[in-house]
Protein backbone atom coordinates (compact mmCIF):
# COMPACT_ATOMS: atom_id res chain seq x y z
CA UNK A 1 0.00 0.00 0.00
CA UNK A 2 1.28 3.45 -0.90
CA UNK A 3 2.56 5.72 1.87
CA UNK A 4 -0.07 8.28 0.86
CA UNK A 5 -2.88 5.79 1.56
CA UNK A 6 -1.34 4.88 4.91
CA UNK A 7 -1.06 8.57 5.81
CA UNK A 8 -4.72 9.10 4.91
CA UNK A 9 -5.80 6.19 7.14
CA UNK A 10 -3.65 7.45 10.01
CA UNK A 11 -5.12 10.95 9.74
CA UNK A 12 -8.55 9.32 10.01
CA UNK A 13 -7.40 7.33 13.06
CA UNK A 14 -6.16 10.51 14.71
CA UNK A 15 -9.64 11.96 14.23
CA UNK A 16 -11.07 8.89 15.94
CA UNK A 17 -12.60 7.36 12.80
CA UNK A 18 -13.58 3.76 13.62
CA UNK A 19 -13.48 2.76 9.93
CA UNK A 20 -9.84 3.85 9.64
CA UNK A 21 -8.85 1.77 12.66
CA UNK A 22 -10.52 -1.34 11.24
CA UNK A 23 -8.75 -0.61 7.97
CA UNK A 24 -5.43 -0.69 9.84
CA UNK A 25 -6.37 -4.10 11.25
CA UNK A 26 -6.97 -5.29 7.68
CA UNK A 27 -3.68 -3.80 6.50
CA UNK A 28 -1.41 -5.01 9.31
CA UNK A 29 -3.29 -7.71 11.26
CA UNK A 30 -1.94 -10.69 9.31
CA UNK A 31 1.63 -9.45 9.19
CA UNK A 32 1.69 -8.69 12.92
CA UNK A 33 0.13 -12.06 13.69
CA UNK A 34 2.92 -13.71 11.66
CA UNK A 35 5.53 -11.78 13.60
CA UNK A 36 4.06 -12.85 16.95
CA UNK A 37 3.58 -16.41 15.81
CA UNK A 38 7.18 -16.75 14.66
CA UNK A 39 8.35 -15.44 18.04
CA UNK A 40 6.05 -17.51 20.25
CA UNK A 41 5.12 -20.51 18.12
CA UNK A 42 1.68 -20.39 19.71
CA UNK A 43 -1.53 -19.37 17.95
CA UNK A 44 -3.58 -18.50 21.02
CA UNK A 45 -0.82 -16.40 22.47
CA UNK A 46 -0.31 -14.66 19.11
CA UNK A 47 -4.05 -13.87 19.02
CA UNK A 48 -3.78 -12.32 22.47
CA UNK A 49 -0.69 -10.28 21.62
CA UNK A 50 -2.29 -9.10 18.38
CA UNK A 51 -5.37 -7.92 20.23
CA UNK A 52 -3.18 -6.16 22.78
CA UNK A 53 -1.18 -4.49 20.00
CA UNK A 54 -4.24 -2.94 18.38
CA UNK A 55 -5.71 -1.87 21.70
CA UNK A 56 -2.41 -0.10 22.36
CA UNK A 57 -2.52 1.40 18.88
CA UNK A 58 -5.82 3.12 19.72
CA UNK A 59 -4.21 4.54 22.84
CA UNK A 60 -0.94 5.63 21.23
CA UNK A 61 -1.85 6.69 17.69
CA UNK A 62 -1.57 10.34 18.71
CA UNK A 63 2.14 9.84 19.49
CA UNK A 64 3.00 8.77 15.92
CA UNK A 65 5.02 11.64 14.46
CA UNK A 66 5.46 10.61 10.86
CA UNK A 67 8.26 8.55 9.36
CA UNK A 68 7.94 4.80 8.83
CA UNK A 69 4.59 3.70 10.23
CA UNK A 70 5.63 0.06 9.84
CA UNK A 71 8.71 0.75 11.95
CA UNK A 72 6.64 2.54 14.58
CA UNK A 73 4.04 -0.25 14.70
CA UNK A 74 6.57 -3.09 14.88
CA UNK A 75 8.56 -1.31 17.59
CA UNK A 76 5.34 -1.27 19.59
CA UNK A 77 4.78 -4.95 18.75
CA UNK A 78 8.30 -5.74 19.94
CA UNK A 79 7.67 -3.89 23.21
CA UNK A 80 4.46 -5.86 23.74
CA UNK A 81 6.33 -9.11 23.15
CA UNK A 82 9.01 -8.06 25.66
CA UNK A 83 6.38 -7.10 28.23
CA UNK A 84 4.88 -10.54 27.76
CA UNK A 85 8.28 -12.19 28.24
CA UNK A 86 8.91 -10.19 31.41
CA UNK A 87 5.49 -11.16 32.74
CA UNK A 88 6.21 -14.82 31.99
CA UNK A 89 9.61 -14.62 33.65
CA UNK A 90 8.10 -13.09 36.79
CA UNK A 91 5.42 -15.77 36.80
CA UNK A 92 7.97 -18.52 36.27
CA UNK A 93 10.14 -17.34 39.14
CA UNK A 94 7.16 -17.72 41.45
CA UNK A 95 6.48 -21.29 40.46
CA UNK A 96 8.23 -24.45 41.61
CA UNK A 97 10.11 -26.73 39.23
CA UNK A 98 7.08 -28.88 38.48
CA UNK A 99 4.92 -25.87 37.62
CA UNK A 100 7.73 -24.43 35.53
CA UNK A 101 7.75 -27.55 33.41
CA UNK A 102 4.01 -27.31 32.85
CA UNK A 103 4.29 -23.63 31.97
CA UNK A 104 7.04 -24.13 29.43
CA UNK A 105 5.01 -26.91 27.79
CA UNK A 106 1.84 -24.85 27.62
CA UNK A 107 3.13 -21.33 26.93
CA UNK A 108 5.25 -22.27 23.96
CA UNK A 109 7.24 -19.02 24.22
CA UNK A 110 10.63 -19.33 22.58
CA UNK A 111 11.05 -23.04 23.36
CA UNK A 112 7.84 -25.01 22.92
CA UNK A 113 5.64 -24.90 19.84
CA UNK A 114 2.23 -25.91 18.64
CA UNK A 115 1.83 -29.44 17.36
CA UNK A 116 1.53 -28.19 13.79
CA UNK A 117 4.73 -26.14 13.94
CA UNK A 118 6.50 -26.14 10.58
CA UNK A 119 10.15 -26.85 9.87
CA UNK A 120 11.05 -23.17 9.90
CA UNK A 121 9.48 -22.72 13.30
CA UNK A 122 11.60 -25.55 14.68
CA UNK A 123 14.75 -24.03 13.16
CA UNK A 124 13.91 -20.61 14.57
CA UNK A 125 13.73 -22.22 17.99
CA UNK A 126 17.43 -23.02 17.65
CA UNK A 127 18.42 -19.35 17.35
CA UNK A 128 19.22 -17.10 20.28
CA UNK A 129 16.07 -15.25 21.31
CA UNK A 130 17.67 -11.86 20.62
CA UNK A 131 18.82 -12.90 17.15
CA UNK A 132 15.46 -14.54 16.35
CA UNK A 133 13.66 -11.37 17.29
CA UNK A 134 15.89 -9.21 15.11
CA UNK A 135 15.49 -11.54 12.13
CA UNK A 136 11.70 -11.50 12.56
CA UNK A 137 11.54 -7.76 12.98
CA UNK A 138 13.57 -7.23 9.86
CA UNK A 139 11.45 -9.66 7.84
CA UNK A 140 7.96 -8.66 9.00
CA UNK A 141 8.41 -4.93 9.49
CA UNK A 142 10.60 -4.51 6.39
CA UNK A 143 12.51 -1.88 8.31
CA UNK A 144 16.01 -0.96 7.18
CA UNK A 145 18.96 -1.99 9.36
CA UNK A 146 19.38 1.66 10.29
CA UNK A 147 15.76 1.91 11.46
CA UNK A 148 16.03 -1.32 13.45
CA UNK A 149 19.25 -0.10 15.06
CA UNK A 150 17.58 3.17 16.06
CA UNK A 151 14.50 1.42 17.36
CA UNK A 152 16.58 -1.02 19.47
CA UNK A 153 19.19 1.57 20.44
CA UNK A 154 21.97 -0.71 19.23
CA UNK A 155 24.83 0.09 16.85
CA UNK A 156 23.94 -0.66 13.24
CA UNK A 157 26.98 -2.94 12.92
CA UNK A 158 25.76 -5.08 15.82
CA UNK A 159 22.28 -5.40 14.32
CA UNK A 160 23.66 -6.27 10.90
CA UNK A 161 26.02 -8.84 12.35
CA UNK A 162 23.30 -10.51 14.45
CA UNK A 163 20.84 -10.74 11.55
CA UNK A 164 23.56 -12.06 9.26
CA UNK A 165 24.61 -14.69 11.80
CA UNK A 166 20.99 -15.66 12.46
CA UNK A 167 20.03 -16.05 8.81
CA UNK A 168 23.20 -17.98 8.04
CA UNK A 169 22.48 -20.41 10.85
CA UNK A 170 18.87 -20.68 9.71
CA UNK A 171 20.01 -21.67 6.22
CA UNK A 172 22.27 -24.34 7.66
CA UNK A 173 19.47 -25.70 9.85
CA UNK A 174 17.01 -25.72 6.98
CA UNK A 175 19.63 -27.11 4.58
Amino acid at each position, binding site marked *: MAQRDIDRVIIGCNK*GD*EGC*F*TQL*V*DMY*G*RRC*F*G*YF*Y*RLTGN*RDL*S*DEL*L*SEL*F*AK*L*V*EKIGTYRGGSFDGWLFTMASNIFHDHLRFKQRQTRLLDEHSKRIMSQSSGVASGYDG*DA*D*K*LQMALGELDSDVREL*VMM*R*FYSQMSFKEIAESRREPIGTV*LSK*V*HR*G*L*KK*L*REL*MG
Partner: protein
Amino acid sequence: MDEAAARQTAEDIENGEKILGAYSAPQPDERVLAEVKKNVVAALRRRRTVVFQRRILGAAVAAAIVVVSVLTLIRYGNPPNSHQTRMVAASIPSRVWEGADDADVTVLKAEIENIQIELSGVQSDDSGNESNDIGDLETELIEVNGDMWKG
Protein backbone atom coordinates in the same frame (compact mmCIF):
# COMPACT_ATOMS: atom_id res chain seq x y z
CA MET B 1 34.63 -5.05 6.19
CA ASP B 2 36.02 -5.17 2.65
CA GLU B 3 33.89 -5.08 -0.46
CA ALA B 4 33.90 -8.85 -1.02
CA ALA B 5 32.87 -9.53 2.57
CA ALA B 6 30.11 -6.92 2.35
CA ARG B 7 28.79 -8.52 -0.83
CA GLN B 8 28.86 -11.95 0.80
CA THR B 9 26.96 -10.62 3.85
CA ALA B 10 24.30 -9.03 1.66
CA GLU B 11 23.95 -12.30 -0.27
CA ASP B 12 23.64 -14.37 2.93
CA ILE B 13 20.96 -12.04 4.24
CA GLU B 14 19.06 -12.15 0.97
CA ASN B 15 19.16 -15.95 0.79
CA GLY B 16 18.15 -16.26 4.44
CA GLU B 17 15.17 -13.98 3.91
CA LYS B 18 14.12 -16.04 0.89
CA ILE B 19 13.74 -19.03 3.21
CA LEU B 20 11.57 -16.96 5.54
CA GLY B 21 9.44 -15.98 2.56
CA ALA B 22 9.12 -19.58 1.39
CA TYR B 23 7.73 -20.70 4.75
CA SER B 24 4.99 -18.22 5.45
CA ALA B 25 3.59 -18.12 8.95
CA PRO B 26 0.03 -19.35 9.56
CA GLN B 27 -2.70 -16.77 9.03
CA PRO B 28 -4.92 -15.64 11.87
CA ASP B 29 -8.54 -16.83 11.79
CA GLU B 30 -10.95 -14.33 10.28
CA ARG B 31 -12.89 -14.70 13.53
CA VAL B 32 -9.83 -13.44 15.43
CA LEU B 33 -9.43 -10.42 13.16
CA ALA B 34 -13.14 -9.64 13.56
CA GLU B 35 -12.69 -9.87 17.33
CA VAL B 36 -9.67 -7.54 17.18
CA LYS B 37 -11.70 -5.00 15.19
CA LYS B 38 -14.53 -5.22 17.71
CA ASN B 39 -12.06 -4.64 20.57
CA VAL B 40 -10.49 -1.69 18.75
CA VAL B 41 -13.88 -0.02 18.28
CA ALA B 42 -14.75 -0.67 21.94
CA ALA B 43 -11.38 0.78 23.07
CA LEU B 44 -11.96 3.82 20.87
CA ARG B 45 -15.41 4.45 22.39
CA ARG B 46 -14.00 4.00 25.90
CA ARG B 47 -11.29 6.53 25.12
CA ARG B 48 -13.86 9.04 23.82
CA THR B 49 -15.90 8.64 27.00
CA VAL B 50 -12.81 9.14 29.18
CA VAL B 51 -11.80 12.27 27.22
CA PHE B 52 -15.33 13.67 27.56
CA GLN B 53 -15.43 12.91 31.30
CA ARG B 54 -12.02 14.56 31.78
CA ARG B 55 -13.22 17.69 29.98
CA ILE B 56 -16.36 17.88 32.12
CA LEU B 57 -14.31 17.29 35.26
CA GLY B 58 -11.78 19.94 34.21
CA ALA B 59 -14.52 22.48 33.56
CA ALA B 60 -16.14 21.69 36.94
CA VAL B 61 -12.81 22.08 38.78
CA ALA B 62 -12.12 25.39 36.98
CA ALA B 63 -15.59 26.69 37.88
CA ALA B 64 -15.13 25.61 41.52
CA ILE B 65 -11.76 27.42 41.69
CA VAL B 66 -13.31 30.62 40.32
CA VAL B 67 -16.23 30.46 42.79
CA VAL B 68 -13.93 29.79 45.76
CA SER B 69 -11.58 32.61 44.68
CA VAL B 70 -14.46 35.10 44.37
CA LEU B 71 -15.92 34.04 47.74
CA THR B 72 -12.49 34.30 49.40
CA LEU B 73 -11.98 37.76 47.93
CA ILE B 74 -15.39 38.92 49.15
CA ARG B 75 -14.87 37.44 52.62
CA TYR B 76 -11.22 38.32 53.26
CA GLY B 77 -10.42 41.00 50.67
CA ASN B 78 -8.80 44.27 51.95
CA PRO B 79 -11.22 47.25 52.30
CA PRO B 80 -10.40 50.21 50.05
CA ASN B 81 -7.76 52.66 51.39
CA SER B 82 -6.86 50.39 54.32
CA HIS B 83 -3.24 50.59 53.21
CA GLN B 84 -3.22 54.38 53.41
CA THR B 85 -4.93 54.23 56.81
CA ARG B 86 -2.16 52.02 58.15
CA MET B 87 0.51 54.36 56.74
CA VAL B 88 -1.00 57.32 58.59
CA ALA B 89 -1.16 55.41 61.84
CA ALA B 90 2.39 54.15 61.47
CA SER B 91 3.77 57.65 61.00
CA ILE B 92 2.92 58.58 64.62
CA PRO B 93 5.90 57.44 66.68
CA SER B 94 5.01 55.81 69.99
CA ARG B 95 7.51 58.16 71.65
CA VAL B 96 5.00 60.97 71.07
CA TRP B 97 2.76 59.49 73.75
CA GLU B 98 5.57 59.29 76.29
CA GLY B 99 7.11 62.27 78.06
CA ALA B 100 4.75 64.93 76.68
CA ASP B 101 2.88 67.50 78.79
CA ASP B 102 -0.83 66.95 79.43
CA ALA B 103 -1.70 70.13 77.56
CA ASP B 104 0.32 69.00 74.51
CA VAL B 105 -1.36 65.62 74.59
CA THR B 106 -4.80 67.24 74.72
CA VAL B 107 -3.97 69.42 71.71
CA LEU B 108 -2.54 66.48 69.83
CA LYS B 109 -5.58 64.35 70.60
CA ALA B 110 -7.85 67.09 69.27
CA GLU B 111 -5.76 67.27 66.08
CA ILE B 112 -5.90 63.53 65.67
CA GLU B 113 -9.66 63.49 66.12
CA ASN B 114 -9.91 66.09 63.37
CA ILE B 115 -7.76 63.97 61.12
CA GLN B 116 -9.89 60.90 61.87
CA ILE B 117 -13.06 62.78 60.98
CA GLU B 118 -11.50 63.95 57.72
CA LEU B 119 -10.23 60.44 57.00
CA SER B 120 -13.70 58.98 57.50
CA GLY B 121 -14.96 61.58 55.08
CA VAL B 122 -12.35 60.58 52.53
CA GLN B 123 -13.16 56.86 52.91
CA SER B 124 -16.86 57.43 52.29
CA ASP B 125 -16.24 59.83 49.41
CA ASP B 126 -16.55 58.38 45.87
CA SER B 127 -15.36 61.50 44.07
CA GLY B 128 -11.95 60.02 43.22
CA ASN B 129 -9.99 62.73 45.06
CA GLU B 130 -8.86 60.36 47.77
CA SER B 131 -5.19 60.52 46.94
CA ASN B 132 -5.11 64.35 47.22
CA ASP B 133 -7.05 64.25 50.48
CA ILE B 134 -4.77 61.58 51.89
CA GLY B 135 -1.78 63.70 50.91
CA ASP B 136 -3.29 66.68 52.74
CA LEU B 137 -3.91 64.53 55.77
CA GLU B 138 -0.37 63.24 55.75
CA THR B 139 0.99 66.81 55.54
CA GLU B 140 -1.22 67.80 58.43
CA LEU B 141 -0.07 64.86 60.49
CA ILE B 142 3.57 65.64 59.81
CA GLU B 143 3.00 69.19 60.92
CA VAL B 144 1.35 67.98 64.14
CA ASN B 145 4.18 65.60 64.68
CA GLY B 146 6.73 68.40 64.13
CA ASP B 147 4.89 70.73 66.51
CA MET B 148 4.93 68.03 69.15
CA TRP B 149 8.68 67.67 68.97
CA LYS B 150 9.22 71.41 68.90
CA GLY B 151 7.22 71.45 72.19
